[in-house]
């Protein structure tokens, strides 16, 4: 507990978290501070490329093991099953319409890559290393949750509420989801890192490592701004039960991640990342897929929950908690 409090305290005062807070505060105070869309996208491409590349290089350093396969399969299972947990929780805790509950559930099965990045960088700062292939697990977990969400929505639509909630789910949608930009870039950079190894890293570390943490700060400033603007515009939508869900769900999911990580025998750092992946909720790929497949689901609900509640919770409290838990439970 002490370890957690110290860690949470020092995390709270890190430039990364403070930058998010600055953005959030600025948006809530209605400052006109804003980041151009092109800059936000540029930073996001940079972070995906850098984290993927680093993961690939790390794998070359340690060899590709059976564990990689196990971890990817575990990740896919988590992504497929966590939405069921989220759905059950939502139905019990809130009165969210079925279609919205399905959409939200999909977000929580999938992952948030910035949360992953923030956790990795906190791990590095603490001197804990993690398996490089966790990046591949992250990529593998992006999409399966959407499958479950659409199944939940289709099941719900057969219920009372008529047309609302009909699911658009064609081959094209699935191609779009599997080949969505962040999956392709993350995996692509992972393979480039894998192929070029330490030598490749030596060539590009002036770009991928040196400014990394600083770019992360600016990106989190932007996320704070977007989250704050979202919260302001969705006042009234997030009632107490939904807020509670936004905190409870990552905690429960992280326990599933913890179990999976321990089962596979990941290093403590790897267990943390598995918990973070389970606990985090998508805010880039899944929302776009939901707009196509479940247009009736209200985007303000799933975006505010994912970006405005669960993301900050993970960033500020969740990650230190997962680190504390994994340090205690996973074999050094």
């Amino acid at each position, binding site marked *: 507990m002490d370890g957690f409090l110290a860690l949470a305290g020092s995390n709270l005062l890190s430039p990364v978290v403070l930058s998010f807070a600055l953005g959030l505060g600025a948006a809530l105070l209605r400052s006109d501070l*804003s*980041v*151009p*869309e092109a800059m*936000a*996208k540029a930073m*996001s491409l940079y972070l995906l490329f850098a984290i993927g590349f680093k993961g690939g290089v790390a794998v070359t350093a340690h060899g590709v093991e059976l564990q990689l396969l196990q971890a990817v399969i575990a990740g896919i299972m988590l992504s497929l099953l966590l939405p069921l947990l989220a759905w059950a929780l939502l139905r019990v805790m809130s009165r969210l319409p079925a279609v919205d509950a399905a959409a939200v559930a999909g977000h929580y099965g999938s992952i948030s890559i910035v949360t992953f990045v923030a956790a990795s960088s906190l791990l590095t700062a603490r001197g804990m290393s993690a398996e490089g292939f966790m990046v591949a697990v992250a990529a593998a977990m992006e999409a399966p949750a959407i499958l479950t969400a659409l199944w939940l929505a289709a099941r719900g639509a057969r219920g009372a509420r008529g047309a609302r909630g*009909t699911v*658009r789910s064609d081959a*094209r949608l699935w191609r779009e989801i599997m080949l969505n930009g962040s999956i392709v870039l993350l995996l692509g950079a992972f393979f480039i890192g894998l192929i070029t190894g330490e030598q490749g890293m030596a060539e590009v570390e002036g770009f991928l490592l040196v400014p990394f943490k600083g770019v992360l700060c600016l990106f989190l400033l*932007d*996320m704070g*701004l*977007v989250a704050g*603007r979202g919260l302001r*515009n*969705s006042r009234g939508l997030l009632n107490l039960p939904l807020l509670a869900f936004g905190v409870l769900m990552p905690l429960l999911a992280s326990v599933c991640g913890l179990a999976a990580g321990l089962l596979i025998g990941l290093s403590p750092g790897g267990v943390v990342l598995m918990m973070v992946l389970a606990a985090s909720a998508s*805010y*880039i*790929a899944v*929302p*776009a*897929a*939901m*707009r*196509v497949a479940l*247009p*009736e689901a*209200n*985007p*303000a609900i799933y*975006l505010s929950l994912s970006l405005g509640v669960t993301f900050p919770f993970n960033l500020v409290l969740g990650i230190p908690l997962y680190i504390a838990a994994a340090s205690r439970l996973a074999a050094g």
Partner: protein
Amino acid sequence: MQTHQAKRVEIIIEAPMERRLTDILEVAGVRGYTVTPVHGGSGRSGRWSREGQVSAAGGMVAILCIIRPERLDHLLEAAFAVLERHMGVVVVSDCEVLRAERF
């Protein structure tokens, strides 16, 4: 100069649906269209802005399509099939064009 009657159709649609709409326009025989960026807006689903956004969700694009009057109905039906369940606006007005052979 010699101008010709045509219809100006402007569709504001969610960004993730852009490709689906333009594909169906091409199937419906539309010979050309132009996509312009949209920065923000407001509607029944609230205010939004692209500022700082990374995801395509929560953004819209505008598609402008000039067509011969006789093709309008065909286009609207095709577009509506894609748009029906989505946010978005379809605006039609009369216009005149140079170089009618292009439409």
